[in-house]
């Protein structure tokens, strides 16, 4: 299982701030995890549709599509940041 967190506009569109999911495979990456999420239901399909802009952090560090994800990880999805 991994913990997924959603922030800001993405949290609002998905109506979800936190969930636990099983990894789609033993050798998962952000990319395969997103493919899995996209296949789940309309809101996820929409939020992660090609062309949508989002950022991802794995274990609280900025990550990329190729970043590995393993059981126990905390994976956060959010829009580009706008602090400061």
């Amino acid at each position, binding site marked *: 299982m991994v913990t997924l967190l959603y*922030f800001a506009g993405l949290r609002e569109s998905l109506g979800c701030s936190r969930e636990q999911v099983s990894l789609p495979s033993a050798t998962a990456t952000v990319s395969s995890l997103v493919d899995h999420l996209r296949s789940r239901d309309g809101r996820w399909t929409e939020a992660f549709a090609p062309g949508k802009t989002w950022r991802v*952090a794995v274990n*609280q560090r900025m990550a990329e599509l190729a970043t590995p994800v393993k059981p126990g990880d905390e994976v*956060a999805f*959010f*829009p580009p*940041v*706008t*602090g400061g």
Partner: protein
Amino acid sequence: MPVVRVQAEDFDVGRELEALTRGRHEVGAVASFVGLVRDANHGSRVSGMTLEHYPGMTERALEEICAQAHARWQLAETLVIHRVGPLVPGDRIVLVVVAGAHRGEAFEACEFIMDFLKTRAPFWKKEDTPEGGRWVDARSTDDTAAERWKNPQKP
């Protein structure tokens, strides 16, 4: 040494500067930046905003940005305070302070920290406008500002 605080409360700029440099007589230059809530953005009146963040990652990201500044320049102290929660126009949002021996380094490091805070620290602003709540879009100029530090020379 980087000091990072994420808090709902306001901060006192004078007191923070004083505390950071008290007794540090090797410090000759203190560059700082204060970000304030503006009352307009993209042509709409803004009556307030809420700052959301990613607890845990926020502090870590800010500490890492400060550590990069310390690695890149000879600095005595860095401080970042960022507020979260509801704010109104005129409110302070962020304070970045860099103390060092000389001004060139202090200015550069202060701008460096702000540029990376804007593009790497997980904060999100939702503005209250007459048309309702609106998530602020990231600005490509902020990405450009952060990109220029990839060059090891002064940008």
